[in-house]
Structures are given as C-alpha cells and as structure tokens.
C-alpha cells in the first residue's frame, strides 16, 4: 500500500578511498521506509565508513546518495534533521547526568523548556533509566550507556536511525534488551533502521534485509533466509519411532547418512518446499511412522565465512 513511498536510503556507486587505499569500491543499496536493514561484515570491511558517509560525517569520492530524500554532501542539514545516529563509541557526555544529557539534546533541537523536560522523562522511563537519571553518566554500566545513547538519538524523533554496532561489548542480557528496543522502535514508531553489526545472530534476529560487506564490496544481499540458501549444507533429519520403520525408510528414501543408534536418517535439502513435500509424500506412501522431522538450514555463520573470505594476513 505504501509502494509509492520513496526509499529511506538509496545509494548508487558509492566509492571512498583513503589515499590509495580503497575502503568502499562501488556500493549500491536501497532501503525501504519502515524496515530494518543490516550491513554485516568483519572488522575493516567499511561498515563505519558507510555510516559516516550516509550520516554526513564524511564526504564520498563518488556515488549518487539520497538519505531521507536529500543528498548528504549537498544538503547536510536536511539529512541531519531527519536522522539520528548512535555511533560505535558511546556518544554521551559522561560529565553530565542521564537527564542532563537528554535535556542537552532537547535544547539543541529547540524543543522548548517544558516539552523538552517531558520528552527527557518519557525516554528515561522507556529506557529504564529513571532511577539513574540524576547520576553522572560516567557511573553508568555499559548497557545503561548504550540505552542512554539511543535515548539521546530518539529525543528528536528521527525517521531514520543509524546504529553502528549497537551491541558490541555488551553482555548477553543487555544485548537482548537492546534487540527488543530496536524491534519496538520499528513496530511502534515506524522508523527505518540502518544497523551495522559483526554479529550474525544480531542481523538474523533483527533485520528484514541484510547486505554482506567484504573488503569494500557488497558480496551478497537479501533476507536472512535468502542468504542462508546461498550456501550448501542444508539437510533434513528424520527420526523414526522404531527399528522397523527406520530400516524401511533407509531402503526407500536414499539417505545420505544415517545414525543407527538414534534411528535417524539425514537427507540432502536444497532449501525448497518441494523437497520437503516430496519426502513427506514418500513417507506417507510407504506408511512409515516418523517421530521427529527437523529441517537444518545453514546458519548465517556458514554464509558469512563462505562469502567474506578475507585474504590470509
């Protein structure tokens, strides 16, 4: 219904070099509004450089870029008014308290005194920082800092949010809290999120679309499932109720490997629904009872390692 809405970000032929060292060698991206996009890649792939260019911090060497409908190089203030950035390094003022940090943002965004105070309190509550509101941010834990950081980004209710490695260095619990916050943002506020991460699980959990960046090039993009199908290694495991069914199945199904101890047969799975339907049909025809059937798709780790082969150091 919103197909006519312009994309939140569109990038064609983005290039950036530092001296003779190319960092980004021709990137193309289109990110629809209201979606989570994840740029995934190992350290040094060019993720942060991409965020810095899209968020007006540095200028590209070449490329046609539109962020929230504006060219970051030509109309930086129009882009800045539409975006919020939570960088890789915590962008909070550690000398100020949590509330003062939020009020600082409200003042810089000219929200006015009373609305600014209200917004700060709202965000402190939403990010579970009310108790620590009057303590200097220097005393905050890693997870609290990240939450305050994101809260500061949200003071101006941006339509497009950049999150550069938002959970790097966080413990598993804080990481999950952060994921929930990001999911809620898109669901409740309809914002677009551009997320970079080196964690495959994070991209898998959050992103509608993933692009894999390796040595300054996009080596793959698609939904998490599409990416997983790019690499071989998927299989179906069928566990049978009894020895008899197991033996008959091996005879009829042509399993690649099997495990007599657990009565389990493994069959190749190319990822299509057809393979699965075919298998179920055959089991049905031969009236073989199945205890458990699981489909193993390759996880993003397989994709990552296969597609982002870095040259040996």
């Amino acid at each position: 219904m919103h197909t006519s809405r312009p994309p939140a970000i569109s990038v064609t032929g983005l290039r950036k070099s530092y001296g003779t060292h190319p960092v980004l060698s021709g990137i193309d991206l289109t990110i629809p509004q209201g979606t989570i996009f994840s740029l995934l890649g190992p350290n040094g792939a060019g993720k942060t450089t991409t965020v810095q260019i899209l968020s007006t911090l540095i200028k590209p060497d070449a490329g046609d870029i539109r962020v929230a409908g504006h060219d970051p190089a030509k109309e930086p203030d129009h882009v800045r008014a539409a975006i919020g950035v939570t960088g890789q390094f915590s962008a909070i003022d550690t000398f100020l308290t949590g509330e003062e940090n939020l009020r600082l943002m409200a003042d810089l965004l000219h929200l006015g005194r009373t609305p600014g105070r209200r917004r700060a309190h709202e965000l402190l509550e939403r990010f579970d920082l009310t108790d620590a509101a009057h303590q200097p941010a220097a005393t905050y834990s890693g997870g609290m800092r990240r939450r305050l950081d994101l809260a500061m980004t949200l003071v101006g209710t941006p339509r497009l949010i950049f999150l550069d490695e938002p959970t790097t260095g966080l413990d598993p619990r804080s990481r999950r809290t952060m994921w929930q916050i990001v999911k809620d943002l898109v669901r409740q506020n309809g914002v677009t999120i551009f997320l970079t991460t080196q964690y495959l699980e994070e991209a898998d959990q959050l992103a509608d679309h993933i692009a894999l960046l390796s040595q300054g090039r996009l080596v793959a993009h698609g939904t998490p499932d599409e990416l997983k199908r790019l690499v071989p290694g998927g299989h179906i495991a069928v566990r049978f109720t009894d020895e008899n069914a197991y033996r008959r199945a091996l005879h009829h199904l042509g399993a690649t490997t099997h495990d007599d101890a657990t009565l389990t047969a493994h069959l190749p799975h190319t990822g299509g629904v057809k393979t699965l339907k075919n298998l179920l049909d055959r089991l049905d025809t031969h009236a073989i009872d199945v205890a458990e059937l699981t489909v193993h798709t390759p996880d993003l780790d397989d994709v990552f390692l296969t597609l982002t082969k870095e040259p040996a150091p």
Partner: protein
Amino acid sequence: MTTTPTTTTTTTATTTTVTATVTATAMRAITDSATMTRRQLKHLWRYPTLILTYTGVPVVFLLLFVYVFGGTMGAGIGGDRATYVGYLTPGIIVTAIAGAAQGTAISVAIDMTEGIIARFKTMAIARVSVLTGHVLGALVQNFIAITTVTLVAVLIGFRSAASALDWLGVIGLLAMFTFAITWLSVALAMVTKNVATASNLPMPLMVLPFLGSGFVPPESMPAPLRWFAEHQPFTPVIETLRELLAGRPAGTTFLAAAAWSAVIALGSYLWARKLYNR
C-alpha cells in the same frame, strides 16, 4: 507600467526572505552556543579540579617570585619586595591566562576524541556552537582565575592607582587577549587526535611571560632575547596592564596589544574552524 511595482514587490519579498533566513541562522547560532556554554559551565561546576589546578599554578608563581626572589628582583628594578609585587602582578595575570589555555585545550581535546562530537556533527545545529561553547565557558574560567590571582596579589600588598576608566581599559584588554588565547588553544587542541599531545601544545604560552616583560624588564636581557621580548605579543599586553593598573596612560602599547589580540583571535578562529570541519 504595472510591471515596475510588481518587480519591486518581488525583490522586497526576496530580500525579506533572505533577511529572515539570515536572522534565523544567527538566532540558531546564538541559542545553540548558549546551550553549549551551559554544558561547559556544568562541567566546570561539577569537576572544578582543572580550573583549580590552572589557577593554582599562577598563585604559586606569584608567591614564589614575591617571597623567594622578590627581595633581589625588587632591588634589581631599583626598589624593594613591595615594588616588585607591583611590577610582577600584570605578568602573573597574563600567566594565568596562558595557564587556563591549557585547561581549555584539555577539555576541547577530550571532547573531540569522544563519540559525542560525532553526535553533535550529525545534528542540525549551528556547527560552530560546539567551539563557541568551549570559548565562552573558557572565558568564565579565565575570569575566575584572573580574579583569584588578583585578589591574592592584593592580599600580599599589591595596590592599584587605576581610575574607573583605567579599570575599564584593564577589563577590555583582558577580555580581548583572553578571547584570542582561548581560540588559539581551541585550535591547538584539534591539531592532533591525541589528548595528551593536544593538551601540551599550549604549554609554550606559559613561558612567553618570562620571555617578555612579565617577570623582569627586557632591558636586562641579552640582545637577541631582548629583541624577542620586545616584539612578542605578551609584552604589549603586560605593559598596557602595568601602565593602566598604575594609573598611567597606556597609549600606543594598548593599540599594539589590541592589534595582536585581533590578529591571534581571527587567525586562530579560522584555523580552529578549518580543523573542526575537516
């Protein structure tokens, strides 16, 4: 016939729009700079260690030079310890400004290496406000340091013969020179990405009052040093302060001090802006 009034109206409208835009931009720069200045003052209020350190150093210098060297120094300028307090105080005031410059450089350098600067740069705020906030915050710090040093000088016997008009001149001159040195330290703080290095770059400023007329008359120095002392920016500032505080007309040294301040302020502002935008 009818086209002329129409054109005039359009031009007026355009001019009005442009004026409105310029006014809005200027208003935004003022509001944002005020916000950033409040931020600096909160830092200062919450963590006064930096300002205490940089106020402490000139106070220690003052006491050392008056009570340890003062007798000999006073005799050297044809008087006694009390005479030397009068001679020294302007030099110590300027040393306080040079000392505070280091504090400013540290606070700017810390800011530039933290993630918060990236946040400010990606917000639609008046770009220069981050720096003007630092400069205005530093002016307050300098005011505190200068007042403290002057009060200590009065406690140990410094007396001024300045009229109200002379005091106005003193305040004006100190404001100009502090403004200039502060912009210089802001620029120096951004030369490197390393806080330790950046904070040490304004250190030579602390030596300049010694290599000028801050502690002893340049006439007593060897020829090359004397030449340097007589031609560097701190000397006319110190001399002007000395004359005004003694209730004597400052004349041309005031103009030289004002000219140096203007040149340093403008050059450093442009340099700082360039470094900030790179």
